[in-house]
């Protein structure tokens, strides 16, 4: 077995710079669809919470945004994350402004 250091010195070797595989290719490191799913889910819940004045929807939207943020990659767009957060927070705030009652859980009979 050749000595490792000899490998480096005697034979020719070339240094190749790292090329991150383009996003579409499968098996790229750190490929994780959770972020995108949670982003979309968060937006849907925010809209539900805003339109139908369901407080629990808005809270769930905040949670979805948080989960999406926790699973995000470093090269992901922060603007999208931020906008998702803002949307969910605004959904919660609007729900409480319109109806300052405490939240009733969705499974309880009003």
């Amino acid at each position, binding site marked *: 077995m050749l000595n*490792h250091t000899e*490998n*480096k010195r005697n034979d020719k070797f070339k*240094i190749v710079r790292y090329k991150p595989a383009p996003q579409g290719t499968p*098996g790229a490191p*750190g490929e994780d669809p959770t972020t995108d799913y949670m982003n979309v889910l968060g937006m849907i819940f925010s809209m539900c919470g805003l339109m139908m004045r369901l407080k629990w929807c808005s809270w769930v939207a905040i949670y979805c945004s948080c989960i999406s943020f*926790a699973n995000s*990659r470093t090269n992901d767009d922060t603007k999208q994350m931020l906008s998702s957060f803002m949307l969910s927070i605004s959904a919660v705030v609007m729900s409480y402004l319109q109806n300052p009652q405490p939240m009733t859980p969705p499974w309880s009979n009003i």
Partner: protein
Amino acid sequence: MKLSIYFLVFLVFISFKISHSAKGKEQFNDDDFSEFEEFDDEEEVTVKPQTKPSHTQNENNKQVKEEEIENQQTIYRKLDDDDDEDEVIVEEDDDNDEFSYFADEEEFIGYDSEKVQGGSKTPRSQEEPKITIAKVPLHLRSNWDSFYLEMLMAAGLVVYFLNFVFGKGKNQKLATAWFEKHRALLESNFALVGDDGKPEIENPGLRKESENVYILWCSGRTLMEGMLIELRLLKRQDLVAVIGQILRPSTDQLIIKVNLDEMDNFVFACGTKKAAGKLAKEMTDITTYCPEKKSGDKFGLGAQFVVHSELSEVAAAILRDHKVMAVINKNPELFEFFHFSDQYSGPKQQEEAQPTKLPQVKSTLVFGYNFPKDSLVSDSLESMKPLMQLTLYLIDKLSHLRLSKDAKSKAEKNRSKVEEAFLKATHAARAEMAQSLREEKKRKERERIMSLDDPEKQRKWEEKEQKRQMKRRAPKMKTLKIKPM
């Protein structure tokens, strides 16, 4: 007289209804009167007549009632114009309609019919207590206890963020600990350890892809283009994943992917049953060249391991090597899988249509290892060092591995078979593509000719086209040359 009694009763009923609806917790009317309703309740307190319950005489009652009417009227005047109109109508209406309206008991919901008869006798005071003010609805100023669900949600968020901070820190500590341990070995083997992506490398070392995935690119060694080390740690920063981890435990993983310069033709994979099964299902080259699995027993690995190999010679060469066996058997829980292939093209694509070209392949070696259980406990990462050494050893060995003639020819045959099958399968698709291209060309030509506005040229072109079509349709006959005698 009777009329006034009925009128009073009606007023009473209306005020009763209004106070009742205001009492309801979330029965806020979203109409314009909602604000007024609240004030109304409060004002009703002040305007409430102070009569005593002892008056039962008609005349006294009448007086009281008249007072009541006035009071009620003042109340109602404060309401919107609509109500005033109603009131006006009620006052001026002296017809029988009013009587019929009252006579029909089903008109009134929750209205006690006895009150109609004993309206004059029943003291007003009995009904007064019922027209109590509705309590002012819950407001933020008082009664925090009712917001317990909100408190819970907020607490949940705080817990989530705390977990995020601690999990992120732990992952970072683990990654740097691993890197420090292996840095010396890597730097002695590679000219470039850690590429930060900038044109001039400023911060060599681990690169964070996400809070649980770290990457290290090593290059500058013979026999290979480069080595990508990926630390796939557990998602300690995501509370949901942490809970999932409790239900379905898994370990931090170390994935090493090496792109070789050159390699003999073979496809080989081995690993734990779960890992090997996943590879066999997902990877194109394994499904194409070695879908059948063999137990690791045959190669001295252990029953929990499974081997997929195109050429048994290769499997033997790899697995019956002392060094390999020594390292694997020393800590079998650290070994996850090996995948060596010259036809590596990644996992299968979920494409609907038939691809018209074979996927691009590269000579790749993939090593999968697990982190030891308590990775941050003093020296448990030491046990991972032999894994890295094994990796480098195998890289060298497999680059220099030369197959026997038989094995080589077998491998060649397999590959040409696969290519043929592919060409056949896509023949129809490719022919269709070629046909469509030809038609496109012809159409363009036709358009060009038509746009020339020269009927002579057009006619000539059309004739040429006709001849071409005839020639193609006519059966191809070989012309025989007859030698002159």
